[in-house]
């Protein structure tokens, strides 16, 4: 494998479950040292893709190469060099926090001594030192998630796959996970993650693809995607009347574009304040006005007509 060859290459990758197509032909390249994201709503096919990359689910079509190998033929050899944090924690409920790491290390053929040493380092890394001797069951969701991430690192993987690493966590736990993932990124570990949080994608991903209905609808860095598919700023308008539709016509030609959501109207404009002034000039009286920068959420809304988190 040459240095320039991507660690992961997918071409026209398909996953079918019976008649249902979960992944409908996607092309992806992930390079060494990159943090790559799959952003998309429920059912977009993110986990199905991650499971194929993790070599625990065989592609139904197309080609997939990981670390220069074929996932169907060399699954075991590829998995030896991956760290996997699945969407559902698959921790061993009968073991303690530390044993979950030492036992898992043994599956990779790591010696007992090295396993113990790694376990202690990783427990420290994810801040579970106080709980090291407790069984897993009573741990909070955030602690389990951190342990699952620690477990994914036990074999010093070339690629870490994280399927929704922070879904269901409270903001504090989420920030701790982000911090840790950021540290991994700084060490040059290749990260592949899925999320339906745009802030997570913006913070962590160098490059990402937006998935919807099993297809990739856009690709680029968070910045590029925002530049390409949205304006610099967004004005969020709320009105006290329930019928927002009636305002759509009245707001015509302010900014570049308008999106009508159930509870608010979004005006896309490079200069938000100018747009707000224009709204004032038309004598419309919004109950609240917010000017903010465009995010990936706006990109997604523009591309699919839907919001990410429903």
């Amino acid at each position: 494998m040459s240095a320039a060859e991507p660690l992961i290459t997918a071409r026209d990758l398909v996953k079918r479950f019976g008649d249902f197509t979960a992944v409908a032909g996607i092309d992806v390249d992930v390079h060494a040292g990159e943090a790559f994201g799959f952003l998309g709503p429920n059912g977009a096919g993110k986990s199905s893709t991650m499971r194929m990359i993790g070599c625990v689910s065989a592609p139904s079509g197309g080609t997939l190469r990981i670390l220069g190998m074929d996932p169907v033929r060399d699954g075991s050899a590829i998995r030896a060099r991956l760290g996997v944090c699945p969407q559902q924690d698959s921790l061993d409920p009968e073991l303690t926090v530390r044993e979950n790491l030492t036992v898992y290390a043994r599956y990779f053929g790591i010696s007992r001594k090295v396993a113990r040493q790694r376990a202690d380092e990783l427990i420290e890394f994810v801040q579970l030192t106080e709980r090291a001797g407790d069984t897993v069951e009573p741990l909070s969701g955030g602690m389990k998630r951190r342990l699952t991430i620690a477990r994914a690192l036990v074999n010093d993987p070339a690629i870490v796959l994280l399927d929704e690493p922070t879904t269901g966590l409270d903001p504090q736990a989420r920030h701790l996970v982000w911090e840790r993932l950021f540290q991994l990124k700084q060490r040059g570990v290749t990260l592949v993650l899925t999320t339906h949080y745009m802030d997570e994608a913006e913070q962590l991903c160098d490059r990402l693809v937006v998935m919807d209905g099993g297809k990739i609808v856009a690709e680029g860095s968070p910045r590029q995607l925002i530049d390409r598919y949205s304006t610099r700023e967004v004005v969020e308008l709320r009105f006290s009347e329930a019928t927002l539709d009636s305002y759509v016509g009245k707001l015509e030609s302010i900014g570049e574009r308008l999106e009508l959501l159930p509870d608010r109207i979004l005006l896309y404009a490079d200069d938000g304040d100018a747009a707000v002034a224009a709204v004032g000039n038309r004598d419309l009286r919004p109950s609240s006005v917010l000017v903010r920068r465009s995010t990936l959420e706006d990109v997604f809304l523009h591309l699919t007509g839907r919001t990410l988190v429903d």
Partner: protein
Amino acid sequence: MVTLVLPRLAARAERRFQRAAAVAGRNVAAARHVGYWWVLVSGFFEPVLYLLSIGLGVGALIKGFTLPDGRTVSYAAFVAPAMLAASAMNGALAETTMNMFGKMKYMRLYDGVLATPVQPFEVALGELMWALVRGSIYSVAFLGIMVGMGLTSTGWAIAAFPATVIVGFAFGGMGMAIATYVRSWQDFDYIMVVQFAMFLFSGTFAPVDSYAWFMRIVVEVTPLYHGVQLLRGLATGALGWGLLGHVAYLIALASVGLVIAGRRMGVLLYK
């Protein structure tokens, strides 16, 4: 050619064995936590109670028992090796069917394991290794009791021990394959019925010569019969070439079971 291929095959076999051992090691770690020692002990008492009640109780009514080679032994000496085989069967089946099913369907334990280099066949092999360790503890204890009661000699008990491992291996392999077909806990009722029928009719309490010919054929294709015959031959010191036939049957059963289990786990878990 051979010099190149053999070491590579050996290295691969060793890696596979190590990964299976890691799966077994997981169970050793878990055994320390979940009050497992009670399960270990309870699995041992059942056959001992049968031996005491039937072997000694019924044995008091039956004078002696003539073996095919003409020697006469007590009824308890005739029944005890069968109890040993049954205990090896029960232990191996409990460990593999129930526990494998629970781990696969409810604990979803293997989802995590199969994301590592460990392959389904190695999981099956590792679980079987653990079942054998556990079964061996029962067997040694039971053989000790047989020696203590004068139902076999120390020498024949030592000879019978590896045979109990083979019996456990066979039922463990079979149990694992069955576990992959179980849909819900209700299905275990069927397994229990079959298990109990085998326990009653595998030449356990009476020689199969006393059965009608068609019953005999049915009994002779089921696995416990071969376990009972093998252990009875060894424990009573009645050796014969037929014992090798029983060994071959049991090892074949174990191998087929393991391969099926590995394949089915792959199908079920690599979706």
